[in-house]
């Protein structure tokens, strides 16, 4: 008798979430199986990788990841168009880091203007991220949400301290919302409940359980993501069935393994190759753990992860 591999089936399903508009609209989620387990059920929507760009020049990025963008990164519009038109990006993640009070401290109005210019110059979906300053993000993201009204973006990140204003802005302007908690599955569920209790559609939330880089707590992120996915699929928990976002680039391109020069640590090999590998490995781990959307920086790392997705789909 032929061997029949056992199949795991689950009562739950991840919500399908569409972002963007028109022909470039993209749907993520929708699966009723663990990541890439297409032999057990439906895993039809491809995970999405968004190219991260900033509203101000990325002076804090290591040289090897600044390099691909040197000619365009002075202007967020040319940066976004470069990602879309030359690098064939499927989505852009615009981080308004320049609004942070410890950075350029740009105003909400300036941020909104940047958002408007960027969204008018591209037709692929846009993710709009604040600077992770909970107070400043409240006002910045309201302005950003209005500036991108009805373009079906993802805005975030809403956290326990500021979710009310940001969720209200997402409702008013028809956007999806990132709900972020700090590596704690119970708080992640709680935040989703609080947001839905405001009248926000639970199927328009994206979960960010907080990312981390290989060697710097990746196993915690991995475990939380995996448990969120299992709660959604196996326990059929409607508060844990949202797609998951992994904000990979910002955690990877600040650890010493992606920065240290080959001259200082010759045994570690080429700095740029090492950084690319570090970002790609971290990203792939997130996908295997259950993430549907990744925010990444280096084109070659993205290329490597896209290739792996091709092979696994």
């Amino acid at each position, binding site marked *: 008798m032929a061997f029949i591999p056992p199949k795991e089936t689950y009562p739950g399903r991840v919500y399908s979430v569409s972002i963007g508009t028109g022909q470039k609209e993209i749907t993520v989620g929708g699966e009723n199986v663990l990541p890439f387990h297409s032999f057990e059920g439906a895993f039809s929507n491809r995970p999405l990788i968004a190219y991260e760009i900033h509203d101000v020049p990325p002076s804090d990025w290591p040289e090897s990841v600044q390099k691909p963008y040197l000619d365009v990164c002075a202007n967020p519009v040319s940066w976004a168009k470069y990602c879309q038109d030359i690098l064939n990006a499927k989505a852009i993640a615009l981080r308004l880091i320049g609004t942070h009070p410890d950075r350029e401290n740009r105003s909400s109005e300036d941020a909104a203007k940047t958002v408007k210019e960027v969204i008018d110059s591209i037709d692929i979906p846009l993710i709009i991220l604040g600077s992770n300053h909970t107070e400043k993000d409240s006002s910045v993201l309201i302005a950003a949400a209005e500036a991108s009204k009805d373009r079906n973006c993802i805005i975030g990140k809403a956290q326990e301290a500021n979710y009310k204003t940001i969720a209200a802005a997402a409702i008013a302007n028809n956007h999806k919302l990132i709900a972020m908690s700090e590596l704690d599955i119970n708080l992640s569920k709680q935040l989703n409940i609080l947001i839905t209790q405001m009248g926000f559609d639970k199927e328009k939330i994206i979960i960010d359980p907080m990312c981390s880089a290989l060697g710097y707590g990746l196993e915690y992120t991995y475990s939380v993501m995996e448990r969120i996915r299992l709660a959604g699929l196996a*326990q059929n928990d409607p508060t844990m069935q949202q797609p998951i976002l992994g904000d990979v680039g910002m955690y990877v391109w600040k650890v010493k393994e992606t920065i240290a020069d080959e001259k200082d640590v010759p045994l570690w090999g080429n700095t740029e190759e090492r950084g690319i590998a570090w970002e790609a490995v971290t990203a792939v781990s997130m996908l295997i753990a259950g993430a549907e959307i990744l925010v990444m920086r280096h084109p070659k790392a993205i290329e490597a992860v896209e290739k792996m997705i091709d092979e696994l789909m």
Partner: protein
Amino acid sequence: MLIIGEKLSIIAKRVREAMMKKDKKPIQDIAISQWKAGAGMIDANIGPAEDNGEELMEWMVTTIQEVVKLPVCLDTTNYKAIEAGLKIHNNEWGRPLINSTSNDPERFAMLELAAKYNSQIIGLTVGKGGLPADAEERAAIAAEIMARAAEYGVPLEDLYLDPLVLQISTSQDHALKVIQAVKMFQELNDPPMKTVVGLSNISNGCPKELRPILNNHYLSLLAYEGLTAAIADPHDVAPTVKTIDVIMGKTLYAHSYLEM
């Protein structure tokens, strides 16, 4: 755990009057209220219903399913009334449950109906000879009902074994015996047999203020032994059921878990 809402019972005056007058409003209000409180099925207890049983059960099932998307637990000893209910039950929201068969040959016909209409069924572990003395006797009767179900073509996963909860005020020793029986029933098959209790009977005859306390604590102990379903008032037991699900790891904890 599955809560089967018990409030639509002919024993309640308001329900009885509505049934007699065929007044849909009170029946539907109670059905909706139980659904919102967490019931996964609605019990329709029309009593022995010797006259007009068929018509009454039909009316009850239709009236309930017009407003709540849940299956109905058909609760009567009248065989024809059960069949009438099964015929018009809307299975889109889950399969019905017959309440009940037992080891009394007069009740075997209910198994025939379960097989014919692809319904689930409760097997009350009593025979013709009166109440079971202990958990072992309950398990022995359960095994006989299981054999009978197999004979009639009812799959064992469609059979819910009911150990028969007795009043704590008159039969205190049975409270623990029923808990033991819930555990033993599951061991009678692999996968484990499903179990159900008529929860509120534990506090029947007790002062009103004691009843929720007895019901909820008793439910916790039964749930720990693996009880599958309880016929109960969802308003009374929902917080306990949700809390047990969290403690037993079936639901992920969050501060607002009771509000979900």
